[in-house]
């Protein structure tokens, strides 16, 4: 108990944030969205102050192109920041929702920047009384750093196309991943043409510094949270695979040991991005939740085979070095603000909830757990859940049925937990399951403010 307290204190000292229980998820997302919008306004304000009165189509297209470029680039930086593993963002919004933001914003960014290119070229062509094609050639050849910017645009479009859902389904994760890395190169290549050809920056030093500062902030966030912090964690704890255990036919648990694990932050409900340093697996990092409360000596994750990577994972050897980024995930005991707690797990979503089920502070008889899986054979960690339920005098319900069954409806929740309205509810599973469960829970009377969800992208 003392060690848990000490760990909580240590973490709170690092990231001082008001208690999250105060706001529901939509409110927290609203706060972050407002901050992003403020930055966007500041960006448009640069354009506003720098734009003299317009007259004629040429100047209007050019001005439109400039503001599109500024807004698109600002949102491109936001795009990078969303994936920079910034702890504040993770705790406020959660990685799962950040990924959704990243996808939507990504589509918007590519559209804005494409429109930027088209509008500027058209405006210049009209001013020079030339064709669009002639102006395109001239822009690329004659304007400073425009060739690099053209390459950047091509890269961004490629990243966008390979990320479209239709393309993703036909592509290996590996291909998509490496193409996606080129987005960073695009940001770098596009930077010079903004400073050297961008009007806002050529004439207004304040705008210039604002822009440079934005880029530096994003760069710093990347270096700190995606490189520095994980490297420090790696050298401090030196994690290695200790044991791989079969849970169900398609689910395994992987145990890891390391040094000074009592100093590892990370608690029940959280996950790390794991990178198993084998010859063919080192380059990819995947999120898996801790399926057991960290005890200072070992960590455990539980993984269901659902793709190339998760089917390969059970074959990692004992002793394999593990590079972990984290902890992430805001679905922790900290979110809870009521005595009674209900856990609702869908499939492998059981992993983080099992850890919370074991470790969340609660009086006897105040916990409930509903676990849904496809069939009886698919209830991973069932024995452990039953043991914990006995120890903590908790209600425990297993529901089996295929995903398409309307097996999970408000009636089932009400019959299992009649007083669901008085509970904090933690929901975890695939996006489809979580959305479905939240709807059912609200119909059963659960309070939006006390619903805490973590969605797995399978």
């Amino acid at each position: 108990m003392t060690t848990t307290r000490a760990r909580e204190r240590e973490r709170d000292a690092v990231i001082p944030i008001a208690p999250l229980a105060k706001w529901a998820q939509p409110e927290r997302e609203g706060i972050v969205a407002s901050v992003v919008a403020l930055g966007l306004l500041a960006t448009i304000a640069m354009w506003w102050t720098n734009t003299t009165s317009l007259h004629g189509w040429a100047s209007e297209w050019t001005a439109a192109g400039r503001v599109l470029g500024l807004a698109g680039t600002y949102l491109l930086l936001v795009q990078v920041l969303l994936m920079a593993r910034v702890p504040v963002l993770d705790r406020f919004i959660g990685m799962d929702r950040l990924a959704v933001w990243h996808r939507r914003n990504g589509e918007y960014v590519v559209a804005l920047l494409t429109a930027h290119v088209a509008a500027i070229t058209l405006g210049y062509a009209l001013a020079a009384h030339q064709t669009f094609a002639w102006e395109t050639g001239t822009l690329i050849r004659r304007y400073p750093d425009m060739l690099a910017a053209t390459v950047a645009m091509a890269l961004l479009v490629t990243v966008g196309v390979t990320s479209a859902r239709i393309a993703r389904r036909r592509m290996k994760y590996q291909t998509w991943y490496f193409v996606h890395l080129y987005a960073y190169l695009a940001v770098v290549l596009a930077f010079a043409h903004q400073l050297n050809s961008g009007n806002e920056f050529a004439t207004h030093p304040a705008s210039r510094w604002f822009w440079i500062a934005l880029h530096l902030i994003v760069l710093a966030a990347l270096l700190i949270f995606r490189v520095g912090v994980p490297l420090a964690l790696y050298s401090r704890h030196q994690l290695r695979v200790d044991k791989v255990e079969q849970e169900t036919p398609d689910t395994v648990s992987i145990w890891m040991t390391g040094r000074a694990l009592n100093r590892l932050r990370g608690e029940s409900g959280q996950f790390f991005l794991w990178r198993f340093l084998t010859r063919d697996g080192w380059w990819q990092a995947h999120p898996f939740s801790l399926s057991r409360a960290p005890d200072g000596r070992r960590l455990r994750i539980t993984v269901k085979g659902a793709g190339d990577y998760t089917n390969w994972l059970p074959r990692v050897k004992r002793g394999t070095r593990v590079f972990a980024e984290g902890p992430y995930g805001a679905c922790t005991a900290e979110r809870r603000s009521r005595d009674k707690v209900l856990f609702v797990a869908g499939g492998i979503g059981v992993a983080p909830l099992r850890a919370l089920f074991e470790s969340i502070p609660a009086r006897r008889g105040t916990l409930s757990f509903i676990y849904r899986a496809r069939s009886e054979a698919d209830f991973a960690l069932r024995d452990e859940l039953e043991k914990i339920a006995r120890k903590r005098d908790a209600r425990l319900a297993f529901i089996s049925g295929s995903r398409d069954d309307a097996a999970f409806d408000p009636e089932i929740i009400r019959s299992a937990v009649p007083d669901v309205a008085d509970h904090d509810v933690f929901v975890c599973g695939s996006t489809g399951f979580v959305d479905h469960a939240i709807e059912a829970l609200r119909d059963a009377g659960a309070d939006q403010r006390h619903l805490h969800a973590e969605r797995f992208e399978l």
Partner: protein
Amino acid sequence: MRRAIVATLGTIAGLVALLNYKTTALPQRVNALGAGTTPTTTGALPGDTGGNNSGGGPGTTAPSGPGSPTTQANDRVVKGNQFDNQFGPVQVEVTLRGNKIVDVNALQMPTDHQQSLFISEQAAPMLRQETLTVQSAQIDVIGGATYTSESYAQSLQSALDAAKR
């Protein structure tokens, strides 16, 4: 799909609103670099700039400016040197009647960038007016066209020097 439509329409509406505020209906467009009475607007396609002083040298005198209705027989038209700044080349020719500056014509003004073109269009008449008022190259810098104003003054000074006024 609905989200995409909303985003597209929202962006277009925002853009149109922004542009709408910034658009002022001018009674008529100022002719390109329309400072002078001569209809000459030399060269200045993007990129075809020479180095400093690559334009016509000073002292090119002619008995009369071409086509200028106010030109009289004893007027001298003197070209200044071309001066480059980061936005493009600037070159003026000055029309003198005795020692009096009666006209200044911008032969070249920066047109490389869209914005430069508009700045040039707006600044050229102001710089001309300024010159006719102060009757020297000691003209004030036009706000928003700092570099162009300086190059303009330099070119003007070189023309006046060449005319040994």
